[in-house]
């Protein structure tokens, strides 16, 4: 076998091995999307009840606009931005998209005179900020493909603490989450959501006409109930953002791995053609050498 042929065969084998890996990752990602979606669906009843209760408590409380979690501070100085990225790469532009969207948010905040403090979820995001030597408020890694409520709670508590710290001592006035919304298997989009301060008051008025609440008796009084509910609301916002992002991450990875597998197939096809061509060229050359040799012998 000629040297050229051997080179082609070797490349085909290597591409085939890579294709097996990407194919396997594609299948794993597909099965995990379904699981992530189920977890997302399972967390929805909680959210519905929680929102209903917050609205009810906000309606019951005497003056919600004075509540620390809802009052819009006149001098906004700092904002915490939770950026949800992936722990692992090989998911196309998934992490890069959220990071880019976050940069846009920082620019907007800067124009409004607000300093953004990133809180980063996922090793990819952490590496991004570390490489650029930018300070972060918190780093959370190791769970992005299967976030649990405990993870979300840890993050939520940190954010709430930062929020409750007075501005003079380095506390933040706003909390934003940048995450990837899972629309369906084919579409995911990066979204920015402001979690705090809340704008429940508007929602209350809006929803009041649609579905009136029963006149709840509050135990203890409405303000205290609201105090107890809002941290849960933040934690659950973080939790659903993590779940959404996890589903999106798997979908992005599946898509990336699918195109890698397709690409490998194309490559194998081209390489096989080239290898056949090389083999044919070798045979042709051998024949012409033999014929040439025979001619030379005959003529002498």
């Amino acid at each position, binding site marked *: 076998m000629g040297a050229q042929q051997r080179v082609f065969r070797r490349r085909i084998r290597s591409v085939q091995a890579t294709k097996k890996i990407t194919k396997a990752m594609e299948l794993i990602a597909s099965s995990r999307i379904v699981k992530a979606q189920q*977890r997302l669906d*399972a*967390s929805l*009843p*909680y959210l519905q*009840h*929680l929102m*209903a*209760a917050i609205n*009810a*408590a906000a309606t*019951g409380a005497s003056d919600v606009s004075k509540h620390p979690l809802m009052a819009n501070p006149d001098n906004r100085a700092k904002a915490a931005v939770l950026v949800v990225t992936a722990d692992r790469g090989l998911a196309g532009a998934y992490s890069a998209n959220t990071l880019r969207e976050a940069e846009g948010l920082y620019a907007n905040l800067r124009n409004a005179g607000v300093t953004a403090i990133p809180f980063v979820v996922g090793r990819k995001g952490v590496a991004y900020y570390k490489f650029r030597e930018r300070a972060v408020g918190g780093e959370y890694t190791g769970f992005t493909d299967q976030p*649990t*409520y405990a993870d979300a*709670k840890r993050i939520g508590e940190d954010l709430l603490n930062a929020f409750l710290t007075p501005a003079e001592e380095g506390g933040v006035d706003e909390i934003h989450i940048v995450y990837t919304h899972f629309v369906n298997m084919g579409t995911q989009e990066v979204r920015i959501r402001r979690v705090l301060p809340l704008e429940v008051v508007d929602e209350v008025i809006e929803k009041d006409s649609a579905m009136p*609440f*029963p*006149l*709840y*008796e*509050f*135990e*203890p009084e409405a303000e*205290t*109930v609201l105090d*107890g*509910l809002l941290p*849960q609301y933040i*934690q*659950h916002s973080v*939790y659903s953002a993590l779940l959404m992002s996890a589903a999106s991450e798997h979908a992005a990875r599946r898509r990336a791995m699918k195109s890698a597998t397709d690409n490998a197939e194309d490559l194998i096809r081209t390489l096989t053609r080239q290898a056949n061509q090389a083999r044919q060229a070798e045979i042709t050359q051998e024949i012409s050498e033999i014929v040439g040799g025979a001619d030379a012998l005959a003529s002498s």
Partner: protein
Amino acid sequence: MADLTVSIVSAERALWSGEAKSVVAKTPEGEIGILAGHEPVLALLVEGPLRIEKTDGSKMLVAVHGGFFSVSGNAINVIAEVAELAEDISLERAKAALARAQAETVEPNEAAIRRAETRISVAGLASAAR
């Protein structure tokens, strides 16, 4: 007498739902018992056992770790960040967790201690009732 429709939802999933005669829950102000026809209530829950008497008279215990519940009409929704049915609790694991939490002398993890104690007491009450 009409029955209560109870549903217990934790942050990660809907845990249990069914019919019940009465529900006893623990709020920051003390214990509160709910029977059918109770006025609408929205109350916070503190860490502790939630007692449910089912329509067939059997008792059910659930460990709830924070959250709230709402009563409207004859429907009662218990929304807890973390909730576990008594039969799902492993007493050994809870005890091990308690020992581990208490052993951390540097920074005692009070939430973990409370959580483990709640689990142990719920599991204990459930086995006593059986």
